[in-house]
């Protein structure tokens, strides 16, 4: 008895207005409306949510960990993007 797999969805929850949606976990559902219900019933039982996003896991495009060096290493050397790179005399005050 092999049953067809029900689609997997990723759940993102905004805990409070002003915050961004954050990945909470996954659920299975046949369609978008039921996915939203499942996300609500599973992940907001303790007042964790103000807003929910659900997205089919298969619709997420992810970078490959193999490409990690190519993707993210080059930024490590660009220290001039950070404020601490620049020297400002102390008596100028907070900048």
């Amino acid at each position, binding site marked *: 008895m092999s049953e067809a797999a029900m689609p997997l969805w990723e759940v993102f929850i905004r805990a409070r207005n002003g915050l961004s949606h954050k990945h909470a976990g996954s659920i*299975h559902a046949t369609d978008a*409306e*039921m996915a939203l*219900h*499942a996300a609500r*019933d*599973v992940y907001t039982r303790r007042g964790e949510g103000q807003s929910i996003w659900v997205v089919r896991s298969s619709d997420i495009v992810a970078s490959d960990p193999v490409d990690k060096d190519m993707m993210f290493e080059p930024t490590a050397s660009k220290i001039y993007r950070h404020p601490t790179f620049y020297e400002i005399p102390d008596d100028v005050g907070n900048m």
Partner: protein
Amino acid sequence: MSGTCEPMMTSNQTLFSYVLRLADDHLILSQRLGEWCGEAPTLEEDLALANIALDLIGQARALYAYAGQVEGKGRDEDQLAFMRYERDYQNLLITEQPNGDFAHTIVRQFFISAYMDPFWRRMEGSKDDMLAAIAAKASKEVTYHLRHTSEWVIRLGDGTRESHERMVEALDDLMMFTGELFEMDAVAQEMLQSGVGVDASDLKAEWQHTVQTILQEATLELPKAGHMQTGGRMGRHSEHLGHILSELQYMQRSFPGLTW
């Protein structure tokens, strides 16, 4: 509400009875839904049904606590919930009907939610502050119950041939318990006239509209309204209630008067 007559002096006895029956509806239905825990068709739905059951237990507790206060004899929520006899429970017959398959449970919950949704919304305008407050909380909860069960009605009605047939059977089996939802007995009438209660008979059109709209989308039909069963409000139940109570009351009956 006509508003043509002065509000009658509401006897506490009537208010007590009115609140108690509402509490019984919610207790018995939550007891039924609790039986689903660990048994639902998906894990996600297991959590969903438990959420509904927990909402109902919460509503029942608030109502029993208030009933006890109105009665003024020092009975608390548990004494009212657990320590009465079969004929003293006044819940609607539909709430005690067995879970059956998932179709029966969904239709039962859908019928009741489509009724309780406008019921609580109107109760928010009750002259009784406590009932209005309970209603304000409950109406948000039941709106979701209605939404959730509606989605299932649509999927099961317009799903497979088997699910459609199961839904037809569930609608047929439960239809005869829906007439009781809209009955107005002397207690309900008195509560309505005093501005405390809701005119249940006036909710019928909205209920039918809600139910029919969803059923249509589900490619289902509301069965013809034949003979409607009645009796819950007078403590005349189906055989199922006794068995529900034998489990519900087991601890309180086996060990009377203890603290848990």
